[in-house]
């Protein structure tokens, strides 16, 4: 699929679906905060929807508990393409403080492998770290995801002195 063309249409109308994979709920409160009239995200065309079938962007929180894993995969499978994911919080990004516990799979990096195995393609992912994430960062993340704002953080290779 032509992602650039698909993103162009979504840029003016961004429907988000909130998917909690077992977070402590602090990130979720920040998601709700970002959707309140105070931030007025409707001015960017952002709207919260109740079904993954309607979603353009999934706001993904939590380290993916074993209990939630099948439901998370099903919800992402139900999304029409292009599948855009905004992975929120330290837990979502890499499992956070639960990265190696027996009850979670350890965040989106592990989930990505499972999704690949199941044939669920994800078209673009943007990570928004923080514990919890700030609402401004969530809005900024959506804009980066759709190419409406420049990503400020770059990958930098650091070498030990003399190494």
């Amino acid at each position: 699929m032509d992602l650039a063309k698909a993103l162009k249409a979504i840029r003016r109308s961004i429907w988000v679906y909130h998917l909690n994979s077992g977070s402590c709920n602090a990130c979720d409160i920040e998601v709700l905060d970002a959707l309140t009239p105070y931030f007025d995200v409707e001015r960017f065309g952002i709207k919260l929807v109740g079904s993954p079938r309607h979603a353009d962007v999934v706001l993904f929180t939590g380290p993916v508990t074993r209990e939630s894993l099948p439901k998370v995969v099903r919800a992402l499978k139900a999304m029409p393409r292009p599948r855009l994911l905004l992975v929120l919080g330290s837990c979502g990004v890499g499992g956070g403080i639960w990265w190696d516990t027996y009850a979670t799979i350890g965040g989106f990096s592990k989930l990505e492998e499972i999704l690949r195995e199941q044939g669920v393609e994800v078209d673009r992912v943007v990570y928004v770290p923080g514990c919890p994430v700030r609402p401004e960062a969530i809005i900024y993340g959506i804009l980066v995801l759709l190419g409406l704002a420049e990503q400020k953080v770059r990958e930098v290779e650091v070498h030990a002195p003399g190494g």
Partner: protein
Amino acid sequence: MLHSILTLVASLVGVVLAPVYDGLERKLRAAIHTRIGPPVLQTWYDLVKLFSKELVIPEGGTWCVLTLALEITALVASIALLNYIPLVTIPGVVGVEVAAFIALLTVATALTMVRAVAQNNVYSVVGGFREFTLALSSEPFLVFSYLALVAGGERPVFRISSLLILTICAYVLSSRIPYDIAEAEPELSAGVNIELAGPLLGVATMSTVLRRFLAAELTALALVSTAGFWSYQALVLSLALTPAVWVVHALVSILLGRTRVDVGPRTLLLTLFPLSVVTITIYGLGL
């Protein structure tokens, strides 16, 4: 011929403007919340986006697609008939056009229920039954009041009483709070629309917007005809008055809160039934 062309133009204008009126409603809601809100064309942007997305056929696909196609056709046809009726009929006569309009309106509601059940999802089935309850508690009164207005003749009190019933029923037809229980997004995870994605959801969204347009135009036409206008004048005036009625509908929905799911239909029955009895009594008294 002239009548058909006029009807076509008026209906086309309605179909194009309905999403713009919806955008205006969202802007108005934002203004009341003291926020900027989306652009006026936001509903059109949403529709364009939905039609550009992947087509996912839900379980029970053929039925779902078929009913959705028939539903939108029935709605567009009822808008066209509503525009056609004042041009070709004489006030006080219930012709075949009026009967067809009522039939199409009922069919559109019935198709929403069939679509909901065809989707094979428990939320959509619940939404479908909610739609059914609402239809049962408002559509008979809508048909009664519409017929009363068309065929009621020169009885001012009777006309005003019928107009009141029609105004309430038209608001219910517009599927706004608290009568949006069939697809109540925050509460029933999108209800009747839960399994629809991309272009199919686009058609369903357009059908909701058109239903709102129909409800506003129907009220506008009833007001204009009660004021004594008919034919071309009625068509032009009702089209001009439609955005004003839309704004009133929007204001009511912004000010009303969501109620428990059974309260809406029950309150409707408790209001509309006595009102209809009073209206019939007024007719009997010749007022």
